[in-house]
């Protein structure tokens, strides 16, 4: 990482100009398909990427999106590798999806993965006190709910890593396009087991915004202002509630950003998640450095 500015520019152009680009850059260590709860097979595994060296390093638990019914851990493979090259251990996880993984089962899985990472901190060179969580869309909801309501009794996992005890929330949360309030939002009836009129208490309990209180971990929200699926107003309301309770929360709104399409520097549209745009990366790494720090 000690290259001069001009050397970095030259390297970036050289790397960018070839399909062999991933071979460029700092190295990282990979642990593939690590099971955090053996009871559910490949539904509860994670890929762990870490910097070379003994650490202990801060870590990021990465939770993919997909409407709680699709997607997989490889969505965050490249971002996790980038974090590993930048001094963070990054664990991209699978969790049970609907119908098996209806709320709160997937929340329990995410907390179990968090507990596993802390339990095996020395093995993966993680500082257990500095584990953040980062997710997008459904994954944004999951990182928000484990950040806001890890101690909710129905969220406590019964997996071996957690030992039947409540799991402490992550030390910081990056929530991309996260549904923070299910009330009046009708995209999650399958996930929540029915419509709001049928299960109003579940809609309240599953909504991160209803758990806002003092003492929450810092949150960074990343949303596109043209996101028709998860409107950015949800993040703004959550931020306002958190700040009013004395918490640390901020919002990055990507101008022209949708749920899956964002405007790039040339003014064209790219198929890309809002939390992986260049401006989101800048905000995210600044947030992670400030809240959980990097190489000691």
């Amino acid at each position, binding site marked *: 990482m000690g290259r001069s500015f001009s050397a*970095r*520019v030259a390297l970036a152009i050289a790397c*960018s100009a070839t399909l062999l680009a991933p071979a460029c*850059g700092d190295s990282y260590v990979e642990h593939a398909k690590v099971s955090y709860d053996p009871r559910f097979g490949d539904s509860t595994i994670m890929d762990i990427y870490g910097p070379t060296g003994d650490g202990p390093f801060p870590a990021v638990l990465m939770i993919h999106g997909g409407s709680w019914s699709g997607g997989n851990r490889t969505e965050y493979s490249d971002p996790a590798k980038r974090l590993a090259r930048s001094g963070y251990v990054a664990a991209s996880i699978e969790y049970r999806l609907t119908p098996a993984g209806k709320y709160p089962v997937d929340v329990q899985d995410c907390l179990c993965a968090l507990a596993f990472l802390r339990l095996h901190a020395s093995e993966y060179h993680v500082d257990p006190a500095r584990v953040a969580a980062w997710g997008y869309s459904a994954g944004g909801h999951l990182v928000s709910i484990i950040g806001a309501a890890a101690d909710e009794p129905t969220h406590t996992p019964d997996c071996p890593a957690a030992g039947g005890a409540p799991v402490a929330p992550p030390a910081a949360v990056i929530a991309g396009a996260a549904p923070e309030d299910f009330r009046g939002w009708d995209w999650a009836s399958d996930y929540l087991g029915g419509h709001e009129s049928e299960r109003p208490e579940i809609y309240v309990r599953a909504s991160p915004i209803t758990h806002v209180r003092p003492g929450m971990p810092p949150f960074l929200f990343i949303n596109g202002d043209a996101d028709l699926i998860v409107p950015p107003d949800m993040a703004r309301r959550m931020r306002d509630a958190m700040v009013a309770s004395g918490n640390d929360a901020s919002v990055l709104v990507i101008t*022209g950003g949708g749920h899956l399409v964002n405007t*790039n*520097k040339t003014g064209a549209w790219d198929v890309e998640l809002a939390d992986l745009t*260049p401006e989101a990366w800048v905000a995210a*790494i600044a947030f992670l450095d400030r809240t959980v720090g990097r190489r000691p």
Partner: protein
Amino acid sequence: MKRRFVIVASGLALSLLLSLSLVVHDVRAADSAGPPVATPPRNALSLQLISIVNSGVNVQYDRLMAPNFSFGPSLGFRKSGGADIDVLESNFGIESRYWLIGREPFSRFDGRAMVGPYVSARIDFGITRDTQNGHVLGTQMSVAEGVALGMRFVIVRRFEVTPSAGFGLRTDFDPRGRLAPFWRGELGRFALLAGVMF
């Protein structure tokens, strides 16, 4: 602030197009007397329409270098963020286009011109800077290469509209080495340019 920026950017863009169209109209008044236009234009100046509705301005110049081949730079700025974090992006790019047949249904140019379907290759250099409460959070630079398939339509006289779709590879890197480089395949890249040929 963001709305004012959009209004000013849109106003500038429209003024630019109007001015150019008047110049073109004056200089080439004879062209409108009847079809076809004798000399196909060798230049084009276009605006990225998508950027205008997203708090940005991106201008592209196109110069015909050979019967089938044009080449030109683009320059753009974009403002994003606006809640707690402000973002400013700038971009410089170079695009070369190969005009496949040099004709399209609506133009009146006599002979081949920079119209109709094309394939292109471009490279872009960009800078992104985030600030929060006046404090710079960080900077990221990007190098992006891409190829695209597009079509330039001449809609009225020399006004043109050019949609395109393509893909590419983008490398983001932190000039201060804070973040490791990041490579992204851009599988869907959609652009819509409009401008004037002269």
